[in-house]
């Protein structure tokens, strides 16, 4: 990586929440601006979508024919492509439409559906172009971005944080909400990185960081069943945010089929 790499932040189908990991970084944003050259970041006022860059951060999934063209150009123009967040990495909320009648949804949501041009499915970036690094989460946080950029500046790949949320939850000494309150916590199958936010406020993790390494989704699902969740509710726990992550999707489909 050269001394001051060029960086672009691109937005696809998404809520803009992951870009806030940069924008809300406070002092770190000032430091970052001194370490890299931000050449495209529409939300921050830098506009040069076609620029050749060293690092392209991609937020959002590919949902429209236009986005499909854009992602191919960006890949050609970027030495390294990093997806940020669930939409770009594993489909996100909007990919839920892939399992339903999209035309019906469009009609239900938009006043003038004839202006909406969609691909059949909404899919993560890696299904269209090669992705060099994935930052999971919905949304990702500043700590993840800072760690990734710092590692790349040092010339190494960032550490893949793939342990379970439980590990961090226990380091912070939160009382387990599943054991003490029968909450359907997804922490035991979910990737760390958030800082165990939900258990810290007494809530169940809803798996927004996607599957951890070695996720025993079957055992997790049976535990949820034991807590009284219906087959459909169990499927929804897995599909909610990261429905294109294979481990979650496959488990969900099993329970959906069982529910029918």
């Amino acid at each position: 990586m050269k001394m001051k790499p060029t960086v672009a932040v691109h937005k696809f189908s998404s809520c803009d929440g992951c870009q806030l990991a940069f924008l809300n970084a406070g002092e770190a944003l000032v430091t970052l601006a001194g370490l890299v050259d931000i050449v495209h970041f529409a939300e921050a006022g830098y506009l040069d979508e076609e620029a050749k860059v060293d690092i392209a951060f991609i937020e959002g999934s590919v949902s429209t024919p236009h986005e499909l063209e854009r992602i191919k150009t960006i890949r050609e123009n970027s030495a390294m492509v990093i997806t940020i967040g669930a939409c770009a990495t594993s489909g996100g909320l909007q990919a839920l439409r892939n399992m339903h009648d999209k035309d019906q949804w469009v009609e239900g949501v938009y006043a003038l559906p004839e202006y909406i041009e969609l691909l059949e499915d909404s899919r993560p970036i890696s299904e269209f172009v090669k992705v060099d690094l994935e930052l999971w989460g919905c949304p990702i946080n500043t700590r993840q971005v800072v760690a990734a950029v710092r590692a790349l500046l040092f010339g190494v790949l960032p550490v893949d944080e793939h342990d379970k949320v439980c590990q961090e939850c226990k380091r912070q000494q939160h009382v387990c909400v599943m054991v003490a309150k029968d909450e359907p916590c997804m922490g035991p199958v979910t990737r760390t990185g958030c800082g165990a936010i939900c258990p810290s406020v007494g809530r169940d993790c809803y798996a927004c960081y996607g599957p951890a390494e070695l996720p025993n989704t079957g055992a997790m699902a049976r535990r949820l069943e034991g807590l009284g969740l219906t087959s459909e509710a169990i499927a929804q726990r897995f599909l909610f945010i990261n429905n294109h992550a294979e481990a979650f999707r496959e488990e969900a489909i099993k329970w959906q089929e069982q529910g029918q």
Partner: protein
Amino acid sequence: MSQHVFLSHRDSQRLFDALDRAGYQAQAPQPKDGALVFSPIRQASDLPWGQHDTQRPGHYRLSQDDSPRAFAWANGPQALKPQLFAPSEPLWQVARDADGKLRFQACAPKPQKRALIGVRPCDLAALAIHDAHFLGGERDGHYAARREGLLLVAVNCSHPAQTCFCVSTGDGPAAKEDSGYDLLLDELDDGFVIRAGSGAGEQLLAGLALEAATPGQLASAKGQQHQATQGQLRHLPDNMASALPNQMTHPQWDKVAERCLACGNCTAVCPTCFCHSEREQPALDGASSEHLREWDSCFSSGHSYLHGHLVRESGAQRYRQWLMHKLAWWPEQFGRIGCVGCGRCISWCPVGIDISAEAHLLCQGGEA
């Protein structure tokens, strides 16, 4: 041999005042988010009066009634471990000075006088193991600093949980003479029978000028220790030492792995587990970095990742490492098994896997 004295519940604030005068910051288990968790305390009235725990595999509930006791429960999710072996802490920092040279700085914590009230006999047994691990051989400065100022007010168990099996490991429900407490309490309905186990304990007791415990009070304390012993439901297999080491290929490993989430909750709540990993946390500008030590677990992939190769890929291999290290291999390392029968890994396992039940299944059929 220290004398047994009696402190009535009515007068229990006097113990807190004495600790305060001696410069100790006191902590005791108090209800928080549905469990008993060590928290700072100044008033005897903040002890967990009337609290009870109900524990089963994968289940922990607190309830309260008008019991006159403060220790009518077994334990919470923490032992002493987080107090001494911090879940996450910087070991050292490094920064560039004006000449561009790297300067390293250790970050050892300062010793602090702390009194922990409500320590259980199994916690003391686990502490002895951690002392051997962190202070015997290579001395861990961070652990040592926290250990130094610690005063232990232990309470014998009168209400073991359904998950407890300290009788079977020999670590409870009453603390052994030389188990390292400063004060040891037996709680009766109207107060505490107390004895000292160290110089610091003797001094505190002398300051309180309490009456000797009556033979009747001593008999009640003995009686409830006996009852607590009789009441335990779980135990480890009698043939474990000879049978377990031979079970590396037992089909039960695959069976338990079907249920095990490999989440590491068991190792985190276990008072004897000591595994950790270390990582770098550089500042964004690259001019400084913190070297962190964090609790790790044999259920994580990093624990067995060696130079591009993951030694324990499957849940079965990881569960086997946990159980075998605790129950089969620990004696070689520390001269005893790595389990003190606290039952925490059973209650706090999200899917209720029971290490004692697994040990029985593995040892069935004897020496394979």
